[in-house]
């Protein structure tokens, strides 16, 4: 079929001086047949961001109505072959000068394509949604593929099943498809379109012209474009969005009426089903546009209503790209940054975020007394070399990789853990670390990384876990059908899964030993097609099915290549979140087009820098720790109190469960015993002697050690690959446990505790108050605090030495359960 086309080119020349630049979207129009339309947008832009939508108040006029008509709303409709110009006049006399129009052949009527028009109509009207005919079992006897991922079957079902009553070619208006959809007869799914509206008409026209099915020659959807690309608005502003599909033959089409629009933040900007955006608050929202299998976004930025002096955003001397990009964003949003934190605050937070421990008192004293202007940088360097750094990050990566005795025997679990801890201690580059695990071969006891394959034996589970672990993205939805929110298709899923189909496992001679090797055969069959797809990484190049290449190595090569679009970002975002309290993308393992970063440029720059420096983990951490953004005070300014995602201040956050527990052990001098281990089902526990007294929670290789404290405070279970396993929420259970549970109470009462030592050393109350503040809060008490606590302690002494001890215990308890202690700030 040859499509006629009308080309309408719009050009804007010199504009009257005003707030911004007038621009017409889309920049170039091609209409490929009779009745094809294109909505125009006339907008005013500043720095490539729309600040005002003038479309509604614009008068449009076509120079040749035989070529293209344009209505008052700015919809251009193809009429005949040729070219035309559209003139654009704004209210108040402003004009956008004439635009040229060129028109091509128009000699044959075009027809609607099943794949590119009928299916989008069924998707937009929700006929093929999961709640209706797109359900696995269909509805009312009609089963369509979910959101039209399988057009061939859908066409067969609509035209060939049910005695061909659904699509009636002899009497098109009698087709069930139309009568049910328009509810001209009873329909459980209600009214999906109305008799005579554009969806109805399109379906009717398609039936009249022969109801042709999908063909191999159909153009395929390459991408979607959305206009405008970005907007900078004020509360209550309204603009509209148009979406255009670009096909493999270079043609394009306005698909706004079929696209699906959603907002990531309804509280900043809402969007209706036709792409109309209304601003409701301050901040940034991503408007997500889905059409077919493609997805794209546009960002709506709404500055906060603050008067801010430009000096607030001056770049600190010697600052790098991190501070530059954060301050650019803050300036755009008119969010002034808080000032720098004190040295005492810095040493406390840097120790906790880097090593998971409180700074030892002697180090705090020395640091505070140090006059060196470079002392913060020096401290960062020292922290990255401490053994607790290796404990802390080995623990984090063990959470990620699900190290535990739940599904690994003890020797295997230890082998996996030791491999991870050694990598951290050696600062092994992240690409080498990932490759080491993903291509591990041999005994799982000597090659600990091989246990990754023991944990994920099923090929689909292995593929999905790998996507989350190393790409920071979930693809699980696409196992059974195209991902409903993202671009991943079922074909891509199974092509990806097939990369992992040649892993051989066999039991070794020793307990827990599994021999891991790459095999020469094995395929993961596509769930629907029942065939093997050529193995292909996400957005990568396929490997021939008969290629002799080791598929795991092929995947690792793709994964760790400098231009991999996901790998560096995934880990950078995890590390950023650890230090900054909030990922550039939240959740930290939910990177996808429809969930963009709060500062896209910064994530890109961090990832590029990380790759350039050969995936050097410590270097990345050093640059984050050294940034002014990390070293900001946690005290909000009135103008940035509403910000929780653009890093205008250090975000206060509760310490992780293990950090709190270890701090209790360290501060009281009474270690926590880990001498009971739960079964995998968690319904019983038995004694374990592997962990000598003094083992810290952060040194545990296992998530099954019985600890009511760690459970109440949200340690990760290490069952499923998901950052959501760890929780930082406060609960009444935690409060009850701190009050009544044995964890803290027993440590304070213990005969070996620090309280006993203070009493033996005959410390005064004032000295005890000093000790507790410095050790637990990394600061001196203020004079009024000191006075108050000494007075309260004196009160308890009136009842004798036992009471004095209890008073001291109660004081320490109060400090260790208070906000200042439990929250990193």
């Amino acid at each position, binding site marked *: 079929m040859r499509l006629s086309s009308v080309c309408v080119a719009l050009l804007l020349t010199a504009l009257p001086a005003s707030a911004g630049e007038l621009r017409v979207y889309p920049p170039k129009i091609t209409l490929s047949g009779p009745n094809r339309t294109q909505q125009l947008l006339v907008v005013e832009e500043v720095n490539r961001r729309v600040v005002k939508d003038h479309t509604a108040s614009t008068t449009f006029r076509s120079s040749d109505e035989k070529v293209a008509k344009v209505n008052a709303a700015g919809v251009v409709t193809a009429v005949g072959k040729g070219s035309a110009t559209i003139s654009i006049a704004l209210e108040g006399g402003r004009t956008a000068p004439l635009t040229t129009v060129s028109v091509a052949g128009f000699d044959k009527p075009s027809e609607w394509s099943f794949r590119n028009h009928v299916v989008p109509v069924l998707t937009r009207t929700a006929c093929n949604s*999961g*709640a*209706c005919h797109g*359900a*696995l*079992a269909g509805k*009312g006897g009609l089963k369509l593929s979910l959101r039209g991922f399988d057009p061939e079957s859908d066409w067969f079902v609509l035209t060939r099943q049910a005695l061909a009553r659904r699509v009636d070619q002899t009497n098109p208006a009698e087709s069930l498809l139309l009568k049910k959809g328009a509810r001209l007869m009873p329909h*459980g799914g209600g009214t999906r379109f109305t008799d005579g509206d554009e969806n109805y008409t399109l379906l009717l026209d398609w039936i009249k012209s022969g109801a042709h099915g999908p063909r191999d020659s159909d153009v395929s959807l390459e991408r979607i474009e959305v206009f405008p690309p970005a907007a900078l608005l004020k509360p209550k502003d309204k603009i509209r969005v148009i979406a255009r599909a670009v096909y493999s033959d270079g043609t394009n089409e306005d698909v706004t009426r079929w696209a699906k629009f*959603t*907002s*990531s*933040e*309804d*509280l900043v900007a*809402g969007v209706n089903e036709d792409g109309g955006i209304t601003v*409701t*608050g301050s901040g940034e929202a991503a408007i997500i546009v889905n059409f077919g299998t493609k997805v794209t976004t546009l960002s709506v930025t709404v500055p906060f209503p603050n008067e801010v002096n430009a000096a607030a955003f001056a770049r600190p001397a010697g600052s790098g790209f991190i501070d530059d990009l954060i301050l650019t964003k803050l300036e755009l949003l008119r969010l002034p940054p808080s000032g720098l934190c004190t040295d005492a605050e810095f040493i406390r937070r840097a120790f906790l975020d880097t090593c998971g421990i409180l700074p030892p008192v002697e180090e705090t004293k020395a640091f505070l007394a140090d006059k060196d202007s470079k002392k913060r940088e020096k401290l960062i360097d020292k922290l990255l070399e401490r053994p607790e750094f290796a404990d802390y990050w080995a623990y984090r990566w063990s959470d990620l990789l699900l190290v535990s005795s739940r599904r690994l025997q003890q020797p295997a679990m230890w082998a996996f853990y030791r491999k991870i801890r050694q990598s951290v201690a050696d600062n092994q580059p992240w690409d080498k670390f990932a490759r080491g695990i993903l291509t591990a071969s041999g005994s799982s006891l000597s090659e600990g990384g091989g246990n990754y394959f023991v944990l994920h034996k099923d090929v689909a589970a292995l593929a999905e876990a790998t996507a989350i672990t190393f790409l920071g993205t979930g693809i699980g939805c696409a196992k059974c059908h195209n991902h409903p929110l993202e671009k991943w298709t079922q074909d891509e899923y199974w092509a990806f899964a097939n990369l992992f189909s040649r892993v051989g496992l066999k039991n070794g001679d020793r307990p827990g030993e599994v021999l891991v090797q790459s095999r020469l055969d094995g395929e993961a069959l596509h769930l629907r097609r029942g065939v093997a797809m050529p193995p292909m990484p996400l957005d990568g190049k396929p490997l021939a099915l008969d290629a002799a290449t080791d598929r795991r190595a092929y995947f690792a090569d793709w994964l760790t290549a400098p231009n991999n679009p996901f790998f560096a970002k995934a880990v950078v975002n995890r590390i950023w979140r650890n230090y900054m309290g909030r990922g550039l993308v939240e959740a930290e393992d939910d990177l996808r087009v429809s969930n963009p970063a709060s500062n896209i440029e910064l994530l890109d720059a961090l990832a590029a820098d990380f790759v350039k420096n050969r995936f050097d983990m410590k270097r990345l951490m050093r640059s984050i720790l050294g940034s002014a953004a990390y070293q900001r005070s946690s*005290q*909000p300014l009135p103008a940035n109190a509403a910000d929780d995602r653009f890093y205008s201040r250090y975000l*206060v956050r*509760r310490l992780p469960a293990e950090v709190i527990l270890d701090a209790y052990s360290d501060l009281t001098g009474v270690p926590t015993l880990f001498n009971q281990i739960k079964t995998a089902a968690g319904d019983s526990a038995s004694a374990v002697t592997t962990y000598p007294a003094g083992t810290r929670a952060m040194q545990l290789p296992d998530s099954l050690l019985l600890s*009511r404290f760690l459970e109440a405070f949200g340690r990760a279970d290490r069952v*499923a690959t998901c950052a959501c396993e760890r929780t*930082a*929420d*406060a*609960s*009444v*259970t*935690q*409060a*009850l446990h701190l*009050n*009544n*549970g*044995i964890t803290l*109470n027993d440590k304070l*009462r213990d005969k070996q505790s620090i309280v006993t030592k203070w009493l033996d050393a005959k410390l005064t109350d004032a000295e005890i108050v000093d000790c507790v503040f410095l050790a637990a809060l990394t600061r001196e008490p*203020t004079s009024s*605090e000191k006075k*108050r*606590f000494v007075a*309260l302690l004196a009160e*308890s002494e009136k*009842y004798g030495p036992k*009471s004095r001890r*209890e*008073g001291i215990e*109660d*004081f320490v*308890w*109060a*400090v260790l*359960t*208070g*906000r*200042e202690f*439990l*929250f990193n*700030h």
Partner: protein
Amino acid sequence: MIRLDADRPATFCDGHTRRDFLHAGAVAPFGLTLAGLNRAKANASGSAKDNDVNCIMLFLVGGPSQLDTFDPKPKAPAEVRGPFTAIKTNVVGTQISEIFPKTAKHADKFSIIRSVYHTATAVHDTGHQMMQTGRLFAGGIEYPHIGCSLSYLKGGRGELPAHVLVPKPIGRTGGNLPHGHAAGYLGKSHDPFILNADPNAPGFKVPDLLPPDYITGIRAERRQKFRDAVDGATATFENNGAAKQLDDNFALAYKLMSSAKAREGFALEKESAKTRDRYGRTRFGQSCLMARRLIEAGVRFVTVNMFETVFDEVTWDIHGSRPFTDVQQMAKEVAPNFDTAYTALLEDLAERGLLSNTMVIACGEFGRTPKVNPAGGRDHHPHVWSILMGGGPIKGGQIIGESDELGYAPKTRPVTPGEVAATLYKGLGLDPHKELPGPQNRPIPLVDYDRKPINELF
């Protein structure tokens, strides 16, 4: 009863026993931070003896099949009818499935709504959201559970939490979405108190509810003074949601610890063996008994989750094959478990005079496909299902709405989850369209304006 208006500090001497501590807790407000005390006072303004309607929500996790439970179709073809026959109930004209012989004798105490449906994705999680909050979550907004809105509007009676969830929140059910058990935008301080223990386990005890012996009254009071002084240094943390939440939870913990009523409510061991047997010695049965005790003690809303997950557990999720449940397992294990516990709860509440001001709703998150699948099971089907409502102002013995001949879709009086929520709010004495401050103080009605209560039930 706790006297929050007692301004005179109680005097303590050292050496008080734990019993003294608890006793003291019942007469004086120690153990509350000032902020907590103010909140407690505010909450206590409605007297602990108010006669407001309570609610017990029995969540039948997995999604019971309408055809095999409360909407049998004896005349439907065999592949739709399923293996069970319909039996008469004590209400003339009302029939239910034979797998609920006990429930059939109590049909006058509840009404069956046979035309509930939803149009969202057919995964468990969406139905959990809608049935517990009245809405599907979208646009980054998480809506509050009905019990959490109630907590926000009325607070607890005295020191008791307004909303208790037993035994555990719904866990993984495949959709990876929030399940709607929490307070959403109302803030974590209105989250339910979660039992987190199996009341059917031997030696069951609510974890950490009571202080150890050596924490006497005087020590608890002193700890509070210290803690208030310590927190004075971090007043700006009030801006931080998580820090505020910590305070709120400490305040609630103190209230619970010092409450004789709370202890009483959770003390399942005080029930006779006969009563415990009556509810069935299952996690669900004992959870229902716990719900009755808690309502008796003054809790306003109790959510009982029948199951924690649908994977590798015998539930209502009768796909017919592993890791799910098959139809016979449902009939042999799940149905009798429900039948026993549900009827015991209705009888027990009625005998104690509590049924007249306690609504009991038993609902799942969706129905099942009318046509039996090749594995002999039925799959997810949100287009129609049945729920039970009774107690409080809800009239029993009625059938509201009907499904079509095949139990496929509502035939008359379709009811959305939002309308069920509106009905519960109305039953609780609240205007279903009362606006609460949502995120950034945007007013959000309890349920959407077009969702009206099912007035036939009142």
